[in-house]
């Protein structure tokens, strides 16, 4: 049973990685298990300057999901490079840096700085964060802007760039094609869906930012559909799939839909051991469904006609 996956810049021992924003920079979860076990780690978003994020409450619980509006709190790309990434050197696990910004210039600045770092293996270009007022999500919902920012970031980056798509769009395939045309080495999908919950007692949205990003098993059918559609349209593009994964069976479902690897977000909060547990379950689950490797399962859920 081979769990290995080779994607641009990423030689993965297994296809499972924590999703950006759900694993910090690895320190906390390294108390629970050896991060060597992970296929890769996608770290928290980096912006040009430090960001203090949105007011609280920043999270709410929903049926089979949660809303978050953290607002890209992070110490800024410089401090991430100097203070956060070095800790991860001790692990034999590729690091994917998540790049965010409000302007094309900010994206380019962050990517150029990360390009100087030796601690990362790839960039995830987060054009889809719905929780920042100034910019952020427009890049993910306008194919021209998405194209532009991808192109400009590619220009300054020697690392492969995986563009993280927003599901809050009418046509996911159009967005995928746009960023692949602009040079994206791969796709990461999906980010959260914009949602809201209202506090009946307070007569106001629970999340201080009003809206938040919906994640967790509630959105899995949407993630699977979007990955399936994009895989139909672009048979070769590397896809890191995510959205509601809780179990090894979910991972296989994402592989069948067309993902080459997967990321796990919200589930970490419920179970800090979820990534290593899924990795341990994966060989048995793959063989239960008749697959001899991760690669053999990718895209196998497609029926034609």
């Amino acid at each position: 049973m081979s769990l290995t996956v080779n994607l641009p810049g990423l030689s993965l021992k297994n296809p499972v990685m924590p999703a950006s924003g759900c694993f910090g920079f690895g320190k906390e979860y390294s108390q629970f298990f050896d991060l060597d076990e992970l296929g890769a780690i996608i770290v928290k978003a980096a912006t040009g300057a430090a960001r203090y994020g949105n007011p609280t409450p920043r999270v709410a619980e929903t049926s089979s999901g949660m809303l978050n509006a953290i607002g890209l709190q992070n110490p800024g790309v410089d401090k991430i490079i100097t203070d956060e990434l070095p800790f991860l050197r001790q692990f034999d696990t590729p690091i994917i840096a998540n790049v965010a910004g409000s302007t094309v210039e900010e994206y380019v600045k962050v990517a150029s700085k990360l390009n100087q770092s030796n601690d990362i293996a790839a960039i995830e270009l987060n054009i889809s964060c719905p929780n920042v007022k100034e910019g952020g999500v427009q890049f993910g919902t306008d194919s021209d802007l998405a194209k532009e920012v991808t192109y400009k970031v590619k220009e300054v980056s020697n690392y492969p760039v995986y563009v993280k798509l927003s599901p809050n769009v009418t046509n996911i395939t159009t967005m995928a094609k746009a960023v692949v045309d602009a040079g994206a080495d791969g796709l990461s999908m999906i980010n959260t869906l914009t949602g809201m919950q209202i506090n009946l007692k307070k007569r106001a949205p629970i999340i201080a930012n009003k809206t938040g990003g919906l994640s967790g098993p509630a959105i899995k059918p949407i993630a699977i559909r979007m990955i399936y559609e994009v895989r139909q349209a672009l048979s070769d593009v590397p896809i890191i799939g995510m959205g509601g994964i809780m179990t090894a069976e979910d991972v296989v479902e994402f592989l069948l839909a067309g993902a080459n690897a997967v990321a796990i977000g919200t589930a970490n909060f419920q179970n800090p051991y979820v990534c290593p547990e899924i990795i341990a379950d994966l060989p048995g689950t793959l063989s239960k469904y008749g697959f001899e490797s991760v690669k053999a399962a990718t895209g196998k859920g497609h029926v034609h006609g």
Partner: protein
Amino acid sequence: MIKKQTLEILSHIQIAEDTFEVVLRSSLSKELKPGQFVHIALPGHMLRRPVSIANVNPEAETFTMIFKILGEGTRNLSKYKHGQYLDVILPCGTHYPIEELTISHALLVGGGIGVPPLYYLGKKLKEKGVNVTSVLGFQSATHVFYEEKFQQLGDTFIATNDGTYGQKGFVTEIIAELDMPIDYYFSCGPTPMLQAVTNQLSNQKGYISLEERMGCGVGTCYACVVPLKADPEQNKKICKDGPVFLANEVSLA
């Protein structure tokens, strides 16, 4: 060392209106310090629920928590019975740093579900030889719990919002009438109470313990931040840098 454990419920009893006391067995019990909390998974709920440590029995390797039914999660938790198991991450967060403090008289100020962590704190203070005075606020008579246990630690005053027990009104009114020197106060309760108490006792050294909606509970997700008083553009994580803070460290606005 923080861990996820499956813990047996040794006892689960109602001790006041909507309020339950649960005793759990954990090999980590002896490491638990006053002010820390545990993070509990509940079936059918995406997120865990944070609950403070209210007491510890290190010999028996057990600890106690006390919670009140607030929404669906705590209602679910109220239906557990002894002999069942809970999935718990523990210990979480910082503690009241009493080892490092020189105290002769401590004031504990608790409100509602902010009362439980103060009991374990008071017990530890008394063990250290500190004089303890407790001022506890509850909604009404039916919500009062642990009064006798606090009395065993020292003078204890109760306020209820509706005056059905103890003094009618807020804990601040009782504090205003107290006539004694204290070195430190320790407070836990709803934010409006903490604001009132920290204002009232702004000349005293004190520690407060905060609540916020949490994602991870271990410091990765940045859900649970509180702005710093010195620079509101900076913030700290309640789950990891807290829940215990110096009273003048964070902004409760």
